[in-house]
C-alpha cells in the first residue's frame, strides 16, 4: 500500500489508545449482569470514554444533508427567514461579528472530557460514549431569541407557531390533513410530511431514501419529504441542534449533536443519556476561543500573504514597464543596425573577390555530389538494415518472453496489471502482424548495397570534366581592359565599375556572385551587431510575454498563491513522506530511501465541492466550495494511469498536510491547510453550498 492516512497528532493517538484500551478492558472483562433487563444493557456496561479522534459533523453539514436527503425544501411558510429569524440576525449583529463571520459559522469543537468527570456517573449511567459537539452559531442565536414556550417535544422555536392550536393540528405542508392534538408525538406517523411527530422516529421513513408504498403517500401522491429538519435538541448551556429523526430513541446517545441527551427520552433498552451540555458547552467555548484566535492569526497571515503577493505582482508589473522601455530601445537599435548592414553590404557587393575554391565543371560537381550521396545512402541503408535485424531479433525474443509469460503466469496472484498485460499481449498476438520477412526483398537489399562498381556505375568516368561556359568567366572578360589604364584612373574606373555593378546587381540585371562566395569582414561584423541586437529584442519580448502570462496566470483569489509559489510542505504518513509544493508538484518519498515519485505536476486551480466532517481541532475541510489544485501527469503507475493529485485547501494558521488518500489507483487526494484560503474569518466561504449560509 503506498498511501496511508494522515494520523492525528501524537497526543490524540495516545489519548485515543488509552481510551480504547480502557474500553476493551471494560467490554471484555465485564461480566454481564445476570438480572439485566435488556440485552442492550450489556453493551453499555463499562466506563464510557471519549474518543476524541472521532470527527464530528458540523451542524451545517447535517442540516444540509437533510435538505438534500429528506428533500426538505422550505415552502413559503417555512422560509429561511423563518429559520433564522430577524432576531437572530440582530443578535448576530449585536455580537459584533461581521457578515462574513456569520456566513462561515461552523463551530467545531470536541469536548475532551472523560465521562468520569461528570457529576452524574451513577451506577445506572450507562452511556456508550461521550463525544463532542459541533454547532452552528446562528442556531444559538435562534435559540436565544426563540424562548421556551410550551412546544411539543422535538419542535424547534422557528416551528413553534405550527403547534399552537390546542385542539387540532394541521400538518405543516399538508394543511388539509388535520388530526387531534393528542396525536402529535404519539409515536405514530399521521402526517404525510411527518410534522405530527417532531419528537419521535415514527416518521423517519418519510424520505426519498426509503422505499415507499401507497400507505405513505395516501394523502399527497407527491414525493415524500419531511417538513421538519429533525428532532430539536435544546442543548441548554450549549448550542441547540437538530438530530436526524432516524437517531431518535434508538438507544444511542448522540452527544455529537445532542449533548442534553433529550433525543433518547424513551430510554429504549434502558439507555439513559445524561445532560452533559454544561461540560460540553464549556469545553466548546474554550476550544472555540482558541480556534477563533487561531483563525484570527490565520487571517492575519493571509493578509501578509496577500501583501506579499501584491508586492510580487508589483515587481512583475514594474519589470513589465522596464521591459517595455527596453524593447522600444532595442527596436530602434535593430532598425538602425539593419540600415547599417544594408549599406555595408551595398558597398561590399561591388568588390569582386575571386573565389579561392578551385572550380570544377558543373557535371563534375554533380557527379561528385551524387557519388558522395550514394555512398551516404548505402551506408545508411546498411545501418538501418542492421538496426532492423537487431530489432527483429529483439522483437522475437520479447514475443517469446511474453508467450511464455502468458502460459506460465499464475492467475491466482490476482494482479490486475499482469492480467492487463496478458490481455494486451493476446490482442497484440491476434492482430495482423504485417508482411513476413521476404527473402526476395532482402536479396534486393543485398544487391543495392553492393559497391557502385559492382552495380555497373564507374564514377571516375564522369568526374573531373570541366564546364567552360560560366558567368564567372564572362565577368572576367569585362574587367580585362582595366589592366591597361594608369593606376590613378584605374582606381576611379574601378570605383565606377563597382558602383555600376552594384547598380546592375541591385536592378537585377547582373547576377550577384559575391554573396555566395564569402562576405567581407565589414558585412559580417554588421550582421553580427544586428543579430545581437535582434537577440536582445527577442529576449526582451519573450520576457515580456512570460511576465505578462505570469501576471495573467490564475494564482487564486487575491493572487495569493503568487506568494506561495514553489514553497513546499510535507508530512509523514505510513512508510512515506509526502510533499506538496505550491503551484509546482506533489511528491511521495519513501522513508526507507529510494527514488522519489512524482505524484503530479501542477496544472490549474479549481473550485470543488467538499462535504467533510471537521475534526475538533478544526483541521479539516468542512462543507462547501473549496479551492483545489490539480496536479497531473506524474510518474506512470504500474497497473494504472499517470499519477495525479488533487490538493484541496482548507483554512489553517500554518501550512500543513492534513490527510492523504489514494482515491483510486494512483489518483491521490491531499487535504492541506494554509492561511492562503482563509477569508476574513476562516474557511473559504461556501458559495452556494448551503442556502442558509447566505443569510
Amino acid at each position, binding site marked *: 500500500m503506498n498511501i496511508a492516512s494522515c494520523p492525528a497528532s501524537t497526543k490524540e493517538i495516545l489519548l485515543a489508545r488509552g481510551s480504547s484500551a480502557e474500553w*476493551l478492558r471494560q467490554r471484555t472483562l465485564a461480566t454481564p449482569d445476570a438480572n439485566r433487563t435488556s440485552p442492550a444493557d450489556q453493551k453499555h456496561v463499562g466506563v464510557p470514554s471519549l*474518543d476524541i479522534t472521532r470527527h464530528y459533523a458540523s451542524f451545517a453539514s447535517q442540516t444540509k444533508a437533510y435538505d438534500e436527503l429528506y428533500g426538505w425544501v422550505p415552502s413559503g411558510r417555512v422560509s429561511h427567514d423563518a429559520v433564522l429569524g430577524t432576531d437572530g440576525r440582530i443578535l448576530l449583529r449585536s455580537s459584533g461579528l461581521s457578515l462574513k463571520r456569520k456566513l462561515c459559522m461552523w463551530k467545531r469543537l470536541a469536548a475532551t472530557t472523560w465521562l468520569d468527570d461528570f457529576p452524574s456517573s451513577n451506577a445506572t449511567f450507562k452511556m456508550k460514549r461521550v463525544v463532542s459537539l459541533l454547532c452552528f452559531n446562528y442556531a444559538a442565536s435562534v435559540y436565544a431569541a426563540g424562548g421556551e414556550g410550551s412546544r411539543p417535544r422535538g419542535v424547534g422555536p422557528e416551528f413553534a407557531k405550527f403547534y399552537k392550536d390546542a385542539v387540532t393540528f394541521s400538518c405543516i405542508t399538508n394543511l388539509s390533513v388535520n388530526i387531534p392534538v393528542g396525536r402529535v408525538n404519539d409515536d405514530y406517523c399521521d402526517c404525510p410530511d411527518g410534522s405530527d411527530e417532531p419528537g419521535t422516529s415514527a416518521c423517519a421513513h418519510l424520505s426519498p431514501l426509503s422505499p415507499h408504498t401507497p400507505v405513505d403517500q395516501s394523502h399527497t401522491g407527491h414525493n415524500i419529504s419531511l417538513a421538519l429538519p429533525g428532532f430539536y435538541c435544546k442543548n441548554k448551556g450549549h448550542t441547540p441542534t437538530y438530530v436526524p429523526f432516524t437517531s431518535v430513541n434508538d438507544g444511542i446517545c448522540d452527544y455529537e449533536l445532542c449533548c442534553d441527551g433529550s433525543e433518547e427520552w424513551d430510554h429504549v433498552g434502558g439507555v439513559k443519556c445524561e445532560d452533559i451540555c454544561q461540560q460540553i458547552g464549556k469545553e466548546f467555548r474554550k476550544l472555540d476561543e482558541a480556534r477563533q484566535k487561531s483563525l484570527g492569526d490565520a487571517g492575519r497571515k493571509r493578509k501578509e500573504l496577500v501583501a506579499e503577493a501584491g508586492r510580487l505582482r508589483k515587481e512583475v508589473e514594474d519589470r513589465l514597464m522596464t521591459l517595455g522601455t527596453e524593447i522600444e530601445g532595442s527596436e530602434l537599435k535593430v532598425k538602425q543596425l539593419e540600415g547599417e548592414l544594408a549599406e555595408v553590404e551595398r558597398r561590399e557587393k561591388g568588390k569582386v573577390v575571386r573565389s579561392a575554391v578551385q572550380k570544377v565543371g558543373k557535371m563534375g560537381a554533380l557527379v561528385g555530389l551524387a557519388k558522395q550521396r550514394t555512398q551516404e545512402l548505402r551506408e545508411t541503408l546498411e545501418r538501418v538494415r542492421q538496426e532492423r535485424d537487431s530489432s527483429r531479433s529483439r522483437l522475437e525474443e520479447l514475443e517469446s518472453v511474453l508467450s511464455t509469460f502468458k502460459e506460465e503466469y499464475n492467475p491466482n496472484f490476482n494482479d490486475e496489471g499482469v*492480467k492487463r498485460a496478458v490481455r494486451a499481449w493476446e490482442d497484440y498476438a491476434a492482430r495482423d502482424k504485417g508482411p513476413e520477412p521476404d527473402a526476395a526483398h532482402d536479396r534486393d537489399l543485398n544487391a543495392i548495397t553492393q559497391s557502385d562498381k559492382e552495380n555497373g556505375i564507374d564514377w571516375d568516368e564522369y568526374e573531373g570534366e570541366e564546364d567552360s561556359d560560366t558567368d564567372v568567366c564572362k565577368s572576367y572578360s569585362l574587367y580585362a581592359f582595366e589592366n591597361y589604364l594608369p593606376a590613378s584612373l584605374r582606381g576611379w574606373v574601378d570605383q565606377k565599375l563597382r558602383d555600376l555593378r552594384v547598380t546592375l546587381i541591385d536592378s537585377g540585371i547582373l547576377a550577384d556572385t559575391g554573396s555566395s562566395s564569402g562576405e567581407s569582414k565589414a558585412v559580417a561584423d554588421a550582421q553580427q551587431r544586428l543579430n545581437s541586437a535582434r537577440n536582445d529584442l527577442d529576449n526582451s519580448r519573450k520576457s515580456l510575454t512570460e511576465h505578462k502570462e505570469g501576471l495573467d496566470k490564475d494564482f487564486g483569489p487575491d493572487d495569493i498563491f503568487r506568494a506561495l509559489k514553489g514553497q513546499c510542505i510535507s508530512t509523514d504518513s505510513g512508510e512515506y513522506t509526502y510533499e506538496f509544493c505550491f503551484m509546482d508538484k506533489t511528491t511521495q518519498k519513501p522513508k526507507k530511501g529510494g527514488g522519489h515519485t512524482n505524484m503530479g505536476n501542477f496544472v490549474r486551480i479549481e473550485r470543488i465541492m467538499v462535504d467533510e466532517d471537521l475534526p475538533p481541532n478544526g483541521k479539516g475541510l468542512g462543507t462547501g466550495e473549496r479551492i483545489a489544485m490539480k496536479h497531473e501527469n506524474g510518474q506512470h503507475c504500474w497497473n494504472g494511469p499517470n499519477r495525479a493529485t488533487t490538493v484541496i485547501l482548507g483554512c489553517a494558521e500554518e501550512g500543513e498536510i492534513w490527510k492523504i488518500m489514494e482515491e483510486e489507483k494512483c489518483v491521490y487526494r491531499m487535504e492541506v491547510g494554509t492561511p492562503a484560503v482563509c477569508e476574513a474569518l476562516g474557511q473559504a466561504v461556501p458559495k452556494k453550498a448551503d442556502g442558509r449560509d447566505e443569510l
Partner: protein
Amino acid sequence: MRGNTICRSLSVKHENFKTCAQSGFCKRNRDYADHASSLSSSWDSPYKLDSSSIKFSNGVLSGTLLKTIDTTTAETVRLPLIITFLESGTARITIDEERRQTGEIELRHDSKARKERYNEAEKWAIVGGMQLSSGAAVSRDAEAGSTKVVYGPGSTFEAVIFHAPFGVEFERGGETQIKFNEKGYMNVEHWRPKIEKPIEEKKEGEDATSEEVAKEIGEDESTWWEESFGGNTDSKPRGPESVGIDVTFPGYEHVYGIAEHTGPLSLKQTRGGEGNFNEPYRLYNSDVFEYELDSPMTLYGSIPFMQAHKKDSTVGIFWLNAAETWIDIVKAKVSANPLSLGIGGHTDTQTHWFSESGLIDVFVFLGPTPKDVVRSYSELTGYTQLPQQFAIGYHQCRWNYVTDEDVRDVDRKFDKHLIPYDVIWLDIEYTEGKKYFTWDPLTFPDPLGMQKQLDAHDRKLVAIIDPHIKNEGGYSVVDELKSKDLAVHNKDDTIYEGWCWPGSSYWIDCFSPSARKWWAGLFQYAKFPSSAPNLFIWNDMNEPSVFNGPETTMPKDNLHHGHWEHRDVHNINGMTLINATYEALLSRNKAEEKSLRRPFVLTRSFYSGSQRLGAMWTGDNQASWDHLAASVGMILSMGISGFPFAGADVGGFFGNPSKELLTRWYQAGAFYPFFRGHAHIDTRRREPYLAGAPYTEIITQALRLRYSLLPAWYTAFYQASTSGTPIVQPNYYVHPGDEKGLAVDDQLYLGNTGLLAKPVTSEGAESVDIYLADAETYYDYFDFTTYQGPGTKTIPAPLEKIPILMQGGHIVPRRERPRRSSGLMKFDPFTLVVVLGNSGDAEGELYLDDGESFEYEAGAYIHRKFAYSGPTSTLSSEDLSIEGKKTKQYLQTMMDVRVEKIIIIGAPESWKIKSEVGVSEEGTNKSTPVKKAALSWHAASGGKAAWAVVRNPAVAIGKGWKVDFAS
C-alpha cells in the same frame, strides 16, 4: 436462462485445471461407462452380492460384495456392504474394501499414508439423524436373487437389493424412484501391487490375457501409478483406488444441486450434444481465477447432494466422499410404449458419480417433497447456523480499506448519508506483511479505536484470516506452528511449504485436534493484539489455495493428521478451518465462556456441513451483467443444497461496474441471504454514497428495504436453522407441482413470506417478466398493482424499482424505521402487512430473539404465528414458542415493543364504512372493554388493490392478541 457469452478478455485459464481426460480416474471411469454402455445388455457388471453373507438386524443390512477381477480364475475382491435404514426414512449404502480395512496392502515409495479407504468424512459432515430405523424389515415377497427391505414413514419405502449383478432400487408408494448400478457403471478400483513388467515381455505377448482383459473393459493403466499435471507429479502410493456408480432417476427430468457451479439451477447433461456440456460436473474445491459462467468446472466449494424432481415428487442422494469427484448427467428420453395406451414417453435422468478415493457412501432420500428432501439432508449434515442479527444486515467490504482512518471515514460517511450498514470488512492488507493476527503498524496504528468507533453504532468489523501462515523468522504464529508440528505435511511427512499471499507459507492442518485447539487460542483477546468483541472473521483461500501447487492447491499426496492423504480429504479441508475458527470465536476470554455469543465466519471453501458454521459467498465474480444474472441461480442452488446463507459480491469483484449495474446489483443483493459489497484492489471506490444522484438514493432505498424486512429475513433464517428450509427459494421448491416452472432460476421467494423478487439483471431494462406458478393473486410490493396467476406477467421495472410481488395469503412482518444499523432497531415497533389471497385468509410467522447470544436455546425468543381468517374477519397472534427458563426475562425486555401498524392489502369493499376495529390483548381482564383502533380503507383504483390500515393497535409483539375487523 442467462446468457452464456462472456467477455473474451476476462476468462478462466482452462489450462490450469484438469479436464476429465486429464484426470486419470475420471477418464478411466468414463471409459468404463462407455465400455459398459457399448456392450449394452451383454455387459455383465463384475459385482455380485454374496447371498449367503446377507444379514439384517436393527435396520442394518450387511453383506459382502464380490468383485470378479479375473474371469478365468474367478478371483474376486471382497467389498463389505452395509445398507443402513434410518428412522428418518433416509437409507445409506456404504461399500468398503476388506483388504484395505485390514491393512493388508503395501504402499509404494515408503509412504506413511494410511492404508484404509478414507472413512472419516462422516465425522466432519454428519451431525445427526443417524438413529436407526426400528420399523425397517426384510420383506418376504422378494423375488429370487433379490432382497427387499421395507422402511420409512408408514413403511411406504422399499429398497430392493439385487444380488447379481449387484444393484439397488428404491421405491416409494410402489413406484421406483432411484436405481443404483442399473447401467453397470459400478467400479471399485481395488488395491493391487504394481507389477513392473519389462517392455520386452509385453511385446512377446506373455501377458496377453490380462492386457486383453484390461483393454476389453477399457482400462488404461497409464494413470494408475503416477500422474503429472502442471509440473507436479502425484506419487500415488496406493495406486488406482477410485470408486464410482451410476444412479438413475426414472421419470425425472430435472436434477438440481451438486453446488457449487455456475450453470443453470436445473443441471445440464454432460455428455455433449446441443446446449449440453461436454465435461462432467466436477467437485474439487479450487481457487478458480476469473471463473466462467455456464460451466461444469469446479469452484471453491463442494456439496455432493443432488435432488431429482418431477411433478409432485422429489428424491435425492448425498454422495459422502471428500475426494475429487465428477458427475456425469444424461437425460434419456424413453419413448412411449406403444403397448401401454395413454402413457406417454418420459425422461430418465441417469447420473454417474465417481471419486478418486474413499468409500462408496451414499444417502438416499425419497421425499416426496423438495422440503422433505432438503430437511432430511439437513438433518444429517446440520441446519444452517442461526446467525447474529448483524450478519444479515448489509456488509461493506473492499480489498482494501487501507488504513484505520479510512475505515472510520467510510463509517462516518454512511452515517452522514443516512445509509444503514452493519459490518465493515478488512481484506489482507491490514496485516503486517500478510502475517495474520498482526496489524500493519503504519497503516493501522489504532485498531481498537477503530473497532470502538464502529461499536458506537453497534457495528462490527470482519477481518480476514487465512490458513496459510507466513514462513518468516520471528513471527510467533509460524514459530509455534512449526514447533508444535501442526502444519500439513508433504508426502515425505515433513512440513509442507508452498506459496500464497505472504510468499513462502505453511498451512495449518485443522484436521488435527491439537491444531484446532491452538488455532482457537490465537483468537483470544490476549493473544490477537487489538482485537475487540465486535471483530469477526473471514476465512478465505481455504480450498486451500496454493499459488504454486497443482491446480492452485495442495499436492494430493500431502499428508494430514492421521496420515490421511490430501486426496482423501481435499473437499473437506476448507470446512475444517472454519470449524476451528467458529470454535475459536465462541469465546475469546474467560468472561465470554459464561455468556457465549454466536460466532460469525465467512468462508469461501465449503463442504456438506459448512452451513452449520457460517456464511459463504460465490468468490471472485466480475462486474458484468451476466455475472449479476448468474448470481441469482447460484444462490438459489446453494439454498436447495442446504447451505442457504449465501451471497455474491455486490458490484462484482473484478472490474468497475457502471452506476446502473451497481444500482441493480444492490437491488438484487437486497435479496441475497448474505449481502456484501466487495471490490478488487484495482477497482475504483464504489461505496453507495459515491454513486451520486439518483443512484445513491436508489441504492439507499434498496438497503433500507432490506433493513425494513429484517424481521422476515431473520424469521427465514430461523426456519432454515430448524428445518433446513432455503432462505431464498426457487420456483420448483415453492411450487413442486408446477411442471412449467421447474427450470425457473431467475426469480426467488423469500422464505415462506410469499415475497417474490425478480432481480433486474439486464442493462436498460424498463420491465421484467415474472413467472407466476399458481392461480393466486399477487400484488406489487410498492404500488399494490394486482397480477392474477398463473402465467408470465410483465411488470414495470424502471431503475428505481425492484420488481417484487406479494403472493396472496401471507402476512409479512416489517420494521419501517430507518436506523443506522440493525442493532439499533432492536426495540422498534413492527408493521404487519396482511396480503389477502384468493381464499380471503392469510398467515405468517415472526421469530425474534436478542440477535446475538445463544439464550434463545433457553427460550429467550418470541415466535408468533399471525393468522387472518376471512370468514371471521379477525387477525390473531398465536404463540409458537416453547417456554424455557429465559423466556420470561426476554419477554420482559420486549414488553414495550408493539405492533404500530397493520396494513391489509386486498381489503374487502365492505370495510368502506368502517372506521375502527376491536383490539383485545392476552392477559387483560376479560371484563376490560375491548380497545378500539382506527381503521382507514382505501378503494382499489387503476389496477391497484384496495387496502386498509389499522392505526396503532399497540399490541405487544410478544403477546397473544386479536384484532376484530367484524365488530
